[in-house]
C-alpha cells in the first residue's frame, strides 16, 4: 500500500488522500492579457518532473503541499501551504 505523510496526521494510506493538481501561481486577472488568463485557466505543465502539488487528507479535511516526482511516484516531502521553510 502506498503511504503519504500528512503534515497534521502523520503517515496514512494513500486511499485517504485526494489529488488536487499542481500548485500554480494565479496571474492578476486585472493586469494580465486574455491569452495569459486562458493559459492559466486551461493549460497545464503536463511534462514529468519533481512537482509541488496540492493533496487533501479527506478524513481530517487537511489541504497541504507534497513535492512528488511524477515519474517515479516518490514523495520527497510534505508540508502545510506557506510552511515550506520551517521543514
Amino acid at each position, binding site marked *: 500500500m502506498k503511504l503519504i505523510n500528512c503534515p497534521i496526521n502523520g503517515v496514512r494510506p494513500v486511499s485517504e488522500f485526494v489529488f488536487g493538481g499542481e500548485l500554480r501561481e494565479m496571474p492578476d486577472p486585472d493586469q494580465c492579457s486574455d491569452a495569459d488568463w486562458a*493559459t492559466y485557466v486551461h*493549460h497545464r505543465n*503536463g511534462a514529468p518532473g519533481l512537482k509541488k502539488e496540492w493533496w487533501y487528507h479527506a478524513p481530517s479535511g487537511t489541504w497541504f503541499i507534497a513535492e512528488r516526482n511524477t515519474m517515479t511516484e516518490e514523495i520527497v516531502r510534505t508540508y502545510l501551504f506557506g510552511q515550506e521553510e520551517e521543514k
Partner: protein
Amino acid sequence: MPYRLLKFALKKEHDEPRFFRALETPKKSYDAVIIGGGGHGLAAAYYLAKDHGITNVAVLERGYIGGGNTGRNTTIVRSNYLTPEGVNFYDASVKIYEGLSEELDLNLFYSTRGHFTLAHTESAMRTMRWRAEVNKHVGVESYVVGPDEIAKACPQLDLSCSGKAPILGALFHAPGSVARHDAVAWGYARGADRLGVEIFQNTEVTGIDVQGGKVAGVQTSRGYIATNRVLSAVAGFTPRVCKMVDVKTPIVIHPLQACVTEPMKPWLDTILVSGSLHVYVSQSSRGELVMGSSLDPYEVHSTRSSLDFVEGLTSHMLDMFPFLSNIKVVRQWAGMADMTPDFAPIMGKTPVDGFYLDAGWGTWGFKATPISGKTMAETIARDKAPELIHSFRLSRFEDYELTGEKGAASVGH
C-alpha cells in the same frame, strides 16, 4: 486442407514474411516526419501516402510499433457520443473500421457485438436518452432499452448488481465493436511501408529544431533529420514532445489500467459498460474477459500496475456476475492516458508552423485510429485541418470553446 497449407507444413524452412522493412539508417531529410508508431501515427503515414501521394515519410518510434496505448487498450469501438461533433467524427471512424480488414488485407478480428451502457440511476437514464436522441439525429443506431432487453442479451448479468445498484435501463448502441489492436498497428504499418513510407523502431525523437517559428528538423537517437513537417502522435508522451517546441496544452497524464481473466467458453456476446460501477467488459476471441475501469486518480508517467485497481475492478465485476468468483485474473497492465479537460482530442495545427498535433486521446482514442489518421494526413498535406476536426483544434481553449463530451467519454471508452 488447402494444398498451400499442406505444402507449407511439409517445408523444412519457414520464412517469416516481415510486415515492414527493418530499417536502421534514416535518410537526411523527409517531406514529413511522424513521431510515434502507434495506430494513429501509422494510420496518418498510410493515408499521407495513399490519399495524398506523399510517400517520402518517416515514422519514428522510440520502442516497437503498437507498444504504447495502441497495444494496451481494451479495443472498444463505438460512436454513441454526446455532442453532434463527437458522434459525427467517431461514426466516420466506425465506417472505415468496418471495411478496414479488407482494405489492409489483414484480419483485424473486427467484431460487431452491440454495446450496452448500463444506467443505475435516474440521472444516468436521462443522459442515455439525451445521447440516444443526439445519435439518432446524426443517423447513428442507438436507443434506450429496459432491463428485459438487457437480460435477453446477457442472461448472466445480475440486474440488481448484488442489490447495490439495480439496473434501470441502458443505452444500446448496435455498431459497438471490438478489434485486435496489434493488427490495426501492423496493418497500417504494412500498408504504409508498401507505399514507400519508412518505419524506424528503437528511434527516439529527442528534440525538434524550430527556426523562425517554423519546423526545420528533428534530433533523434539515430541522428538529425531535416523536415518541414512534423506530426506528434505520441499519446502519453505528448507533454514531453510539446515541451520540445514550447507548445502549451491542457494535457495531463494519468495511468489507465486493464486486465484479463483466464479464457472461458464464449458466453458474453455483447460489450457492457457501467459508469456507476466503473467497469467495462467484453470477451475476446480467445475467450478471456477483457476488463477496464476508470483512470488512476493522480498524475503518473509510468506504466506500472497496482493491486488496488484489480481489487476494485473485480469486486464490481462480482456485483454484476457473481458466478465469476472462482475465475482468475491472469494479466494486468497499464497505459498512459493523455487527458484533456473536455474529454475530446486535440488535433490539427499549432502555433509552430509545420508542427501538427494529434493528441488528447486519453481513454478513448483506439476507436478513432482510422479517422484521425485520415484527417491528420489531410491536415499535413494541405496545411489546413478539415471541417470534421475543427472543434478539436488546440486554439479552442483560448477561444473558450471547449466541447461538452465528458458525459459520454469518461468511463465509457
